[in-house]
């Protein structure tokens, strides 16, 4: 497959691609390099758009189909932009029997999005996930890496408000 991405202006102007070069360089000679490169690339770009996937395919000299195949197989890799705060509601068994389904419903209402959706202001993405391993605190959810446990559905509005307020503070 031939592709002229490297010469396109996007990659040369965007400094993140220089970071990506470094990441590719770091792993290039290791076996099984694709997965760690994708993890780190997603940390840089927040998600993995087509241009990034093509760039990685060329950099590691693997077919684009393989890169796309791996990206779409694992639920932690995203091909869509995500909100600044990713809310992951644990839907594991322990949380489920303690009512995490209700928390999810309340969040959908509160944020006005479905599972997988991102709020219009780009602040929140709502996701469900399998066990976070914090079952002792069930029901739990994480917002980015912060774990919030022992929740009831009535905690949802204040939790969302907390992050909205945090955001406004950082803007001002």
């Amino acid at each position, binding site marked *: 497959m031939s592709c002229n991405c490297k010469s396109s202006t996007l990659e040369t102007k965007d400094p993140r691609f220089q970071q990506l070069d470094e990441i590719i360089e770091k792993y290039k000679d290791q*076996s*099984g*390099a*694709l*997965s*760690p490169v*994708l*993890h780190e690339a997603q940390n840089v770009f927040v998600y993995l758009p087509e241009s990034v996937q093509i760039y990685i395919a060329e950099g590691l000299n693997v077919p684009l189909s*393989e890169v796309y*195949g*791996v990206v779409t*197989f*694992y*639920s*932690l*890799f995203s091909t869509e932009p995500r909100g600044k705060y990713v809310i992951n509601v644990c*839907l*594991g*068994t*322990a949380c*489920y*029997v*303690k009512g995490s389904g209700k928390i999810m419903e309340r969040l959908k209402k509160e944020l006005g999005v479905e599972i997988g959706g991102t709020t219009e202001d780009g602040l929140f993405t709502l996701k469900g*996930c*399998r*066990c*976070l*391993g*914090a*079952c*002792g*605190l*069930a029901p*739990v959810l994480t917002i980015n*890496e*912060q*774990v*919030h*446990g*022992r929740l009831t559905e009535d905690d949802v509005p204040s939790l969302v408000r907390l992050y909205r307020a945090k955001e406004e503070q950082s803007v001002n």
Partner: protein
Amino acid sequence: MEIYRSHVLVCAGTGCTSSDSLEVRDELNKELNRLNLDKEVKVVEVGCFGFCNLGPNIVIYPEGTFYCRVKPQDVKELVEEHLLKGRIVNRLLYNEPETEVKVKDFDNIEFFSHQKRVALRNCGLINPEKIEEYIAHEGYFALAKALKEMTREEVIEVVKKSGLRGRGGGGFPTGLKWQFAYNTPGEVKYVVCNADEGDPGAFMDRSILEGDPHSVIEAMAIAGYAIGAQQGYIYVRAEYPIAVQRLGIAINQAREYGLLGKNILGTDFNFDLDIRLGAGAFVCGEETALLTSIEGHRGEPRPRPPFPAVEGLWKKPTLINNVETYANIPAIILKGPEWFSSIGTEKSKGTKVFALAGKINNTGLIEVPMGTTLRTIIYEIGGGIPHGKKFKAAQTGGPSGGCIPAHLIDTEIDYDNLIALGSMMGSGGLIVMDETDCMVDIAKFFLEFTQEESCGKCPPCRIGTKRMLEILERITEGKGTPEDLENLEVLANTIKNASLCGLGQTAPNPVLNTLKYFRDEYEAHIFDKKCPAGVCQALLTYVIIAEKCKGCGLCARVCPTAAISGKPKEPYVIDPEKCIKCGTCIEKCKFGSIEKK
């Protein structure tokens, strides 16, 4: 070296840190500084005590006083009273749920007193980010013993004789696995740790990696020596950031101390470790899928044989064990196989860590000898079922397992007894359910899980689980037919027999097992169109109990479909035709006069 008169152990596991234990730690240090006690009292961050529900947990030694739910604002009192004046702070002690008795000593709390800690021996005792503390607790002594005093064959023999079986779910004898990997000739071999703990409700691997990462590193080095490998990989879920971070720190420290790398402890044995992150695919907990994932591909399983011990990572002989299995190894090498095999039952030796969760008073992580009864776990360690509800079933084995019903509560838990009941050990999640849990709904929940996590490679799993889920959805919606039960069983048996990997082969277990013990609930859904536990929305009707209704009209005002009508100060009624069963009226009613039937 400084000597301290007291040590304050603060849990820094995932559970307690999300209950603000790190703020408590900072506050402790601040208070100790203020009172000039910082040279006398030392604050130590440790791994999980297991009592996550009561976090943040703190233990003060030498007395061994256990304090729970300690908030930053409690610290001042705690330091002044306990550490300065030597008086116990009663209000922060643990309350036994049944007796309401306050217990001050760590060892006298029922949750801890029935436990025997082997795999979790250092969790909650040492600072996981300091290799010196691990070494002070006989850490890396087993590696030294293996390298200096034992041949490779002797190491394998000890593991075999201990009777240790794989703690990841299958229960395959660990020593045999080591033997197979040793027997396969090859210049390059690999040791892999499966830390892709995916079973919902299980978090022992996370706690071990967060609380005692060196025990896994040491065991992998011993395994490397035994089978003849120089490189190992730990495949850990990216969902466990604290575990990943502490593992990284531990590996670096081990390298600095010459316990990983070249010429370990002055021998000609070389061994090093790398971490590989999972990316959120449950199927990667299956060993062949995990290896494919480390290779950088889609984590799809492949047929066995060849088993990984013969042809594994990059087609080289590979030994793969789970975190808890490895955590047992150093203790077995040091204390001997006879010590280990003296614990447990005839065919299941040693201890097992369970993650106790669900409808139970004491949720958390426990380690008990194999053969402990479910009754002991639920009523003595777990403190019983909250709100006076009735125990209905305990779910083990995650999506591959099943439910043990209440009448079998005296079952001794080991690998073989659980299989005989149609469940399995799995990685050790134990989720307690009470009378308000619907078993058909639980079966549907697990099928949703496996159906979504099926990688799609083989049709029995990909299509079969989907068809089973559709039937279960129909049943919970009140559209089930008498043939559905038979169809479920036929499908289940086909999927079990024909699927490629463990995920598909065990996916029907939650359905088969609940059909066996709770068939009447399925029948109630299908024939009577009722959900006895009151869970399945479509089968419930909302009614206002006339005697309790004060006629305030609040329910009628909040009803989104105007299904409630009536006159003020007279009982209201719900029109079942219009009711969409949203539950808003129940939430709003101040008199508890609306019920689901």
